[in-house]
């Protein structure tokens, strides 16, 4: 159970949100909505433990996430900056993600993954030469590679085509079925099983 207790976030002089409370269980998705600049990304960064709230706390299994670094190792985070190196090829990027996640290097698995996200032909192309949607696919491939229990996604659908979004929604659904937890910001409607979805709107 991931719980937020009275979160308050201030950026510069403006207060983005205060007294924010929510809780998400394993197998549930928290969909964060709100206008541009309403603090969605700031909230996700707090949930990952990258930045601290001005007030309040976030707990996972009733322990503050800011006091337990091991919490972070359960998170897969795909932010606006995707963490993909433009000067590396698709396979090199995937291989680095795999090793950084502490898994042995497994080339056949990476090729399989490249095929799955529809980049098999481009697997040895520098990421810099790919389209924005293709780069996003590389970043999202990390989710399947790491197989962690908490997925934190910031606008994952940006630049993706319809076909891939359908596929991706299926992956999200599978993740929830396996009792994974999902926190996602999006402007578009995500097709997820309704009983699993909690929604909050930042204003």
């Amino acid at each position, binding site marked *: 159970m991931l719980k937020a207790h009275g979160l308050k976030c201030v950026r510069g002089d403006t207060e983005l949100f205060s007294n924010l409370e929510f809780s998400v269980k394993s197998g549930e998705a928290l969909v964060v909505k709100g206008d541009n600049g309403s603090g969605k990304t700031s909230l996700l960064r707090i949930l990952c433990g990258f930045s601290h709230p001005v007030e309040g706390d976030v707990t996972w299994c009733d322990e503050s996430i800011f006091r337990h670094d091991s919490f972070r190792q359960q998170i897969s*985070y795909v*932010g606006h*900056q995707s*963490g993909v*190196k433009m*000067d590396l090829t698709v396979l090199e990027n995937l291989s680095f*993600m795999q090793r*950084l*996640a502490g898994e042995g290097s497994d080339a056949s698995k990476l090729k399989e993954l490249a095929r799955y996200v529809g980049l098999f032909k481009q697997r040895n192309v*520098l990421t810099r030469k790919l389209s924005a949607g293709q780069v996003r696919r590389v970043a999202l491939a990390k989710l399947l590679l790491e197989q962690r229990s908490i997925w934190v996604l910031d606008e994952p659908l940006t630049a993706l085509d319809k076909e891939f979004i359908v596929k991706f929604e299926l992956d999200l659904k599978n993740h929830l079925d396996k009792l994974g937890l999902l926190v996602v910001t999006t402007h578009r409607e995500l097709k997820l099983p309704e009983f699993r979805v909690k929604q909050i709107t930042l204003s």
Partner: protein
Amino acid sequence: MLNVLLTVIHRDLLVAFRRRAELMNPVLFYAIVVTLFPLGVSPDVSFLSKLAPGVVWVTALLAALISVERIFKQDFEDGSIEQLFLSPYPVSLLIFGKVVAHWIITGVPMLGIVPIMAMLLHIPGQVLPVLWISVLIGTPILSLVGAIGAALTVGLGGGGMLIGLLVLPLYIPVLIFASSAVSAAMDGQAVSGQLAMLGAGLILALILAPLAISASLKVSMD
């Protein structure tokens, strides 16, 4: 543990190699400064060789100062830094890999070019080993300490000047001991004291800098 360290080093070197033009910058910088000195000051042998230890070391120091700013910049902009913090490995270890890669890009070319610099500045041949060793021990300290400044200022945007202010005081001891080792060797005196101090500095930096860097990055991300 060692595997992931090598992975980080390998990735950073690969990225650097894909931007070959930038890769040549440090070497070019050393070459330009050292060739301009005899032209600009005086080609007189005894004068130049007296100046030489200082020139070599000031060049190394400036090159480190200029290049170290970029060490985390790209990672910060493309979001790779955050991914390091989500890895099961200690962040200080991963960061150490990045610093080693930086040293391989800036320090190792310097080791190669030092004999040529020595020739241009009329440093006697028997002093060359001491100069070379001082560069071998000294430049990793510059990378390690510089990376602390880079980590502290990476979130600020345009932190170049600030890095100088933060890091320069810590570079000064390296400059003093390294160039005085070379000067002493020229006068035929013992150099073990200065080199031992440099070595102690390197050990201290190796132990403490990675921790300071990862803590600084954490602050910069907030």
